[in-house]
């Protein structure tokens, strides 16, 4: 606690000296007046909880919610699903996804989800042309974990869906996650709208990435020397002090750190050589933490430079939206789109039933008792089920 206290106190004082600690003036009336008439879009993805096969993502949809504060007409709000994929997203030909190929199902699912959300944002920007587009989650993710030799490419049709208006047909490396995602980010970065991502309750175990970048900047600006910076780095790592924990102690209500252009892709030594050129070209979003409410943890905001609103205006909106959800302190528009996009349990259940029926039918069609037995086992997910009782097998 002493280390945390000292670090937080020192950082706060230094940030104040450097003019990097900023505060949003809380005033709902003035804020909403300012954003009146501006279309604001929110994007979030939902993944169906398809458990019976335990396989790669089969059903993902991305919902969007676009709203114009101050609007009085029927067109004030629009809810949509901009991307809906119920398919095998990855190309299973050749290496094959489900057979001898890539078996980290979680990675496949996450990669697909990130791409789908970015695709949803692109689709929404094209169709609705909002002034601001806010994604639920990081704007840019570290892609090295997915830049693996055996990581399957998207099917070309999926790649096409993921890049609305993206032009040429993509196959092989061009349809691989890193390529597709990079292209999506390039398109988002060039959008005329302010594009940002908001992460609530960041769970990263990596010690203070943003803090380290901040300290480096402070050092470059002459607010601390190299020894002090290294000591602080060391303590952050030694005590595994993450950004949210440290900044929770640094920030007061409605305060935020002046944004830092953050390289999310990590150190060079962790980037696979074959993808190094691509990954190094990934955009560096302006990143900060803001604490909308005194009693809640700070949230992370990542944004690209372009767009009609500057960073302080974006933070002003984020804080006021979050204050409409005081206990959770998270932009209420993202809470709305989260509920909208979430694949409900009944839908997942129906999908499970449908897949189970198909599996059983194919197994029966094969006529192979071993396949049928396996299918039963998958379906029941419980070997103590009546299907596996000796009496039943005998009959």
């Amino acid at each position: 606690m002493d280390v945390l206290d000292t670090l937080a106190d020192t950082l706060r004082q230094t940030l104040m000296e450097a003019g990097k600690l900023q505060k949003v003036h809380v005033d709902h009336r003035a804020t909403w007046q300012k954003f009146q008439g501006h279309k604001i879009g929110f994007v979030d993805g939902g993944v169906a909880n398809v458990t019976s096969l335990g396989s790669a993502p089969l059903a993902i949809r991305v919902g969007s919610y676009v709203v114009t504060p101050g609007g009085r007409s029927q067109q004030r709000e629009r809810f949509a699903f901009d991307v809906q994929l119920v398919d095998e997203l990855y190309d299973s030909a050749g290496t094959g996804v489900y057979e001898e190929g890539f078996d980290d199902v979680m990675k496949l699912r996450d990669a697909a989800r990130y791409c789908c959300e970015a695709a949803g944002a692109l689709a929404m920007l094209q169709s609705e042309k909002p002034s601001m587009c806010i994604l639920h989650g990081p704007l840019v993710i570290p892609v090295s974990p997915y830049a693996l030799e055996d990581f399957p490419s998207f099917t070309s049709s999926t790649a096409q869906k993921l890049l609305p208006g993206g032009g040429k047909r993509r196959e092989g490396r061009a349809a691989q996650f890193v390529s597709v995602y990079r292209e999506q980010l390039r398109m988002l970065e060039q959008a005329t709208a302010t594009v940002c991502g908001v992460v609530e309750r960041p769970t990263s175990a990596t010690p203070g990435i943003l803090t380290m970048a901040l300290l480096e900047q402070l050092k470059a600006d002459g607010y601390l020397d190299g020894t002090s910076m290294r000591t602080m780095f060391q303590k952050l790592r030694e005590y595994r002090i993450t950004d949210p924990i440290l900044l929770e102690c640094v920030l007061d209500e409605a305060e935020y750190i002046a944004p830092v252009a953050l390289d999310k892709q990590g150190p060079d030594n962790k980037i696979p050589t074959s993808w190094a050129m691509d990954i190094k070209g990934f955009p560096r979003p302006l990143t900060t933490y803001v604490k909308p409410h005194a009693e809640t943890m700070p949230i992370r905001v990542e944004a690209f430079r372009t767009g009609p609103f500057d960073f302080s205006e974006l933070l002003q909106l984020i804080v006021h939206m979050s204050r409409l959800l005081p206990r959770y302190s998270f932009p209420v528009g993202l809470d709305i789109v989260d509920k909208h996009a979430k694949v409900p349990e009944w839908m997942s259940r129906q999908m499970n039933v449908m897949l189970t029926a198909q599996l059983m039918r194919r197994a029966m069609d094969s006529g192979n008792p071993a396949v049928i037995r396996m299918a039963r086992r998958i379906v029941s997910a419980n070997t103590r089920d009546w299907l596996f009782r000796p009496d039943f097998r005998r009959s």
Partner: protein
Amino acid sequence: MESLSTWDSIGTIVGDASTSEFSFILKSFRSRVGDLVAVPMEIPNEDYTDRSNIIAWGRITSIDRYNPFFPYEAAQELANESISLVDTVLSNSRDQLQARVLVLGFTWAEETGRLDLFPLTYPIPPAADVRYPPAEAIRELLAGGLEGQTQLPIGTLIARSDVPVAISAERVVARHMAILAMTGGGKAVAARRILRELIDQGYPLVIFDPHGDYIGLWEKRDLFPDTQVRLFYPHLVMAEENRAIVETLIAKMTEGLTEPQFEFMHAVMAQEAPEAGESVIGYIRRLLGHVERQIGSQSANSGPHRRPTMLATRRALNLVVAQLAKMESSNKRLRQLHPSLKFEQLPDPHEQPEEIVAPSQVSILYLGGYDHLTQSTIVSLLMEALFAHRAELSDRIAPFLSVVEEAHNFIPSGREGTDDTPSLATLRKVVTEGRKFGVGLMLVTQRPSRVDETILAQCNSFLVLRLVNPKDQAFVRSVMENLSESDARMLPGFGPGQGLISGQAVRFPLLVRIKFDKDLLSSRTQDEDFIRQAAQWKPDGKANVRKRVAAAADKLTRFKRGKRRKPN
């Protein structure tokens, strides 16, 4: 009737559906509580070899609306900051409407004309389409229940003004009806609506009117050229069979008699038998004269009854006479307030019942000025006599419907501690046996919970308008078997003239808006404008005299009598 396929689809059934109820998600602004909805479906035929297409009918009993995208805590922030939802990024366009439906029965899909309604014995299919039937289809459905019966149009469905609602005249006049509503709920409007239709049918009506609510029928009698509307004031008449009335009046209007005093009373009554058609007050005066003579006679001290007993009995009889006279004069004064109204003395129901009950006649008995007990006695005497005529099957009078306003005063619940209210037993007899003899009751009350439960439960039809008192709501639920919980919850929310009609007079419970007969409104039944009256009030002509005399009296009190001087 339009083809079923053209009926608008307004929602989809969700959750578990049964043969008695279901829920559906409703399209925004496409239906309301009280609406009748239809679900096309299949049921197995009788021998289970095939399926038949039917239409299941239901009534929307409640609609829940919620906004799944509006966080609860945001409301507090909006309130604290005095900002409007639409000025923020909050959503208000995705309300979900979940309607609950009570299944009424089914009709065959191919049937047209007056539709026969059968109980549904196969469950409503989940996820089925819910349709909004056109007015014509509902009219056919409602008409099917009243086939071959005289229809009394009373209004329209609350949710659909294009669908008229009628009730069965036969069921109302023979099987009794209750109209329950709080003050201002529209019970007089509803009663007048039904009575007007019965007047058009020429059905004999006897109305007990404690407050003059029905005098408008007499004032507007020109609207009923074929009907004689008569306005009566009470005239209590003695008959051999109602001698007990004297004891009842003594018991209620005085502190009662002791056993010796009763014995003395019986002895006097044995010697002074009532004469045919003699008024009650006249008879009691005659008894009083007899008692006076006894007291004055020399045998007063030597006879079987002691003098104090006679004096106490005389005091009781005097009290009864004084109170009856006071009420008669009060009733008379009330009548004189409206000299334009032509009141007649109530004929002797034993001797001249046809003067009270006759086809195409409405007899209104104005009970204003009398206390509840006397009103109850009057109703009891009259109904006993009229019922006896019908029960004798002598055909001396036609079948008739009697309307009992303020029914809680005439058939009070046992909880009120008024078991010996004279009209209670009489009306209990009428409600249980009246159906056999063509004596119907229409009970009207604003305090249902104060009415005798057994009698009210005997009513086969109910029109329940606005009821706010929780006791009344609970009581109505206990009495009306087919009143659902959601229906009961609606009772306090009804507007004037809106209500629920249920029972044998209709095919199934319906939410109705009673037609308001403005032309029947009496000028006297309007709310008094006391504010204006108070502003315009001036002291009466004698006020100055009273003031002068009071001043003089005050002055007089200050005079002290001095010591009398001794004469020189």
